[in-house]
């Protein structure tokens, strides 16, 4: 068994094309996905959201609201004409534009509908969703604050008819200072009632970057499935070349031929995953040293499950071509539903439930547990256990089909 494993590893490393496909292609894809999921640079802070604004009201209230929005660190304002904005949306250069229509100032006093509009490209609804969530809290707060100020001014002027404009300004400034003292300099959420305070339990930090973890784990597992499927197909290559028959002439047990190949596949898979994580550490600063035992267990269980899958595909096929075609379809489907291509957290709930049938899901969630949630070994071992169980089941089925299909044809 060991002889077969060593021979297979030797042949694998002689084959430059196989080595390149196993290591360079996944590294390239991880880099691309890391950029796509915004995982580049774990220490990089989130950039402010770009918000084009058209002020058709051009009143002191609209200017004041825009200035307050501009003062927020999470938003970067860019004023432009309506025609310019519409043109840029059509050309895909901007996501949308916030328009303050004429009558905005007047609407503040009468508590009617505010003439504010967000024009946007429907194809970019996800980006608009993020923008809306930022605007919703802040914009209405500024407007509410302004309306309250107006109401207080009116009330003071009606009640205390002799109040001079200077005195009124002093009173309003004091009220404003008190408001800011209570709610923070940017007018963040009032303590009660007016908005929901969001406090993340797990958030991005120096050693955590969700996009990067998704890119590395998702891509590495998907590419691993591709490489181990070709390792599995190796048994059919041997059958075609006649070397499998010669192996059967030797005193080695037929099942040990299969297990020798699986062992080689496992070693290559563990190496591939380890190289992927090392690359992510060197290139993107992913902290892979948080919990080494958990990471090693997850790497080994993922490698075992994926290798068993590769051997399983080979055992139910009759030619290498069959394995290739089947592997492409099954791996793409599993990767699609398992979260390798699109992060599970942006998928609908039904898809998140279906995902559990995919090996990718268990692998990715396991690596999330280690690098994102930073759970203890006892929690990580559950995901690893599922992967080991999948591996054992696949190996048992593969052994049965190997005896029935491959040995008979050898």
């Amino acid at each position, binding site marked *: 068994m060991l*002889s077969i494993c060593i*021979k297979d590893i*030797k*042949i694998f490393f*002689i*084959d430059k094309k196989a080595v390149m496909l196993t290591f360079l292609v996944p590294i390239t894809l991880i880099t691309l996905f890391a950029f796509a999921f915004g995982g580049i640079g774990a220490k990089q802070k989130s950039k402010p959201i770009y918000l084009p604004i058209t002020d058709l009201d051009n009143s002191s209230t609209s200017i004041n609201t825009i200035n307050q929005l501009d003062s927020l660190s999470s938003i970067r304002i860019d004023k432009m004409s309506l025609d310019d904005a519409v043109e840029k949306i059509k050309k895909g250069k901007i996501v949308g534009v916030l328009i303050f229509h004429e009558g905005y100032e007047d609407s503040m006093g009468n508590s009617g509908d505010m003439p504010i509009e967000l024009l946007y490209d429907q194809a970019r609804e996800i980006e608009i969703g993020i923008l809306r969530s930022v605007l919703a809290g802040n914009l209405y707060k500024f407007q509410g604050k302004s309306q309250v100020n107006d109401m207080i001014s009116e009330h003071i002027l009606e009640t205390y008819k002799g109040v001079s404009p200077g005195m009124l300004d002093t009173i309003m400034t004091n009220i404003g200072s008190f408001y800011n003292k209570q709610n923070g300099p940017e007018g963040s959420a009032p303590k009660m009632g007016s908005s929901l305070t969001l406090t993340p339990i797990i958030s991005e930090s120096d050693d955590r970057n969700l996009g990067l973890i998704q890119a590395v784990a998702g891509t590495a597992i998907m590419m691993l499935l591709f490489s181990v499927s070709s390792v599995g197909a190796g048994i059919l290559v041997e059958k075609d*070349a*006649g*070397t499998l*028959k*010669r*192996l*059967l*002439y*030797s*005193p*080695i047990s037929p099942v040990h031929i299969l297990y020798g190949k699986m062992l080689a596949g496992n070693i290559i898979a563990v190496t591939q995953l380890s190289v992927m994580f090392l690359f992510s550490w060197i290139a993107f600063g992913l902290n892979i040293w948080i919990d080494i035992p958990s990471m090693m267990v997850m790497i080994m269980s993922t490698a075992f499950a994926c290798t068993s899958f590769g051997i399983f595909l080979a055992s139910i096929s009759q030619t290498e071509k069959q394995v290739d075609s089947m592997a492409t379809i099954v791996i793409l489907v599993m990767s699609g539903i398992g979260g390798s291509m699109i992060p599970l957290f942006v998928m609908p709930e039904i898809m998140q439930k279906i995902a559990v049938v995919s090996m990718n899901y268990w692998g990715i969630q396991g690596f999330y547990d280690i690098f994102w949630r930073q759970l203890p070994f006892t929690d990580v071992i559950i995901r690893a256990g599922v992967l080991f169980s999948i591996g054992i089941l696949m190996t048992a089925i593969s052994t049965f089909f190997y005896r029935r299909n491959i040995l008979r044809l*050898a």
Partner: protein
Amino acid sequence: MQYIRGIAIPDNQNIMINVQNLCKKYKDILALDSVNFHIRQGEIYGLLGPNGAGKSTTINILSTVTLPDEGEVILDSFNLRTHADKCKNILGVVPQEISLYDELTALENLYFWGGLYKINRSELKQRASSLLDMMGLTDRKNDRIDTFSGGMKRRVNIAAALLHSPKILLMDEPTVGIDPHSRNLIFDVIEELHSNGLTIIYTTHYMEEAERLCDRISIIDSGKIIAEGTLEELRNISNIKESIHIDLTSIPDENSFKAELFSDFKITQHENSIDFFTTNSGRDLSKIISLLTESGHEISSLEMRKANLETVFLNLTGRQLRD
């Protein structure tokens, strides 16, 4: 008659392989039908037959890859059914395909195949080196197999079967598709192994190979051994001593020689050439020439040949070996 593990063994003979009543069926096709033979130690035993005759099935059973439906095989006192592992250790198999790893060198291939037999590392190195020397490949030992010619690959293929010093060597058409130089070298190697007392089963459909190498030959057709013996014994079995090979200037009608006129002769026809099989060519030659001339055929050349395995096979089965 003596018995080993219930199998009858001919007396006073050092029997290395004893095959009794071997049957194998693949779905509806009877690949082997009650095959019996025994091979003495140090013999080269030829299995001669056309494609699909049952040669490879016999080799597959003897090499433990396929189980027979019926019958018993004893290899050097080990029953194949009950002691397959022991049988594997005394068997060397040279498969019909070149079963080597192209990406590895000749030496690496031999180390790998030898390693499967748990040969001591230093002994393996020594064996591999001497076998490569025997095969005339010492200077190419560190070259990858995919840089070798077909003949060189065949030689490494044979060397890989000899690493564990087997008592029995099964050679399944080991010279298919190779150049004359490599073929002669392989023949020399086989003769050397023979002189060292190795028992060899040699399957081929090249009669000249069987004639040159084999001590005894069995002719197998449609899963049955139809004749067995030395070349001389086979010639006697077939009752044919000679053949007259005639080339005609034109291709005759396929029914020309089915006429009563030629009913005294065994005839095979291939396009414009005809073989007449006879026990006395001197007596029959003039009769054949006059019959051909009378029936309007023009002879372009004529050759008289001594009976060989081809003619024996033809006489026994009515078909040519390479049909």
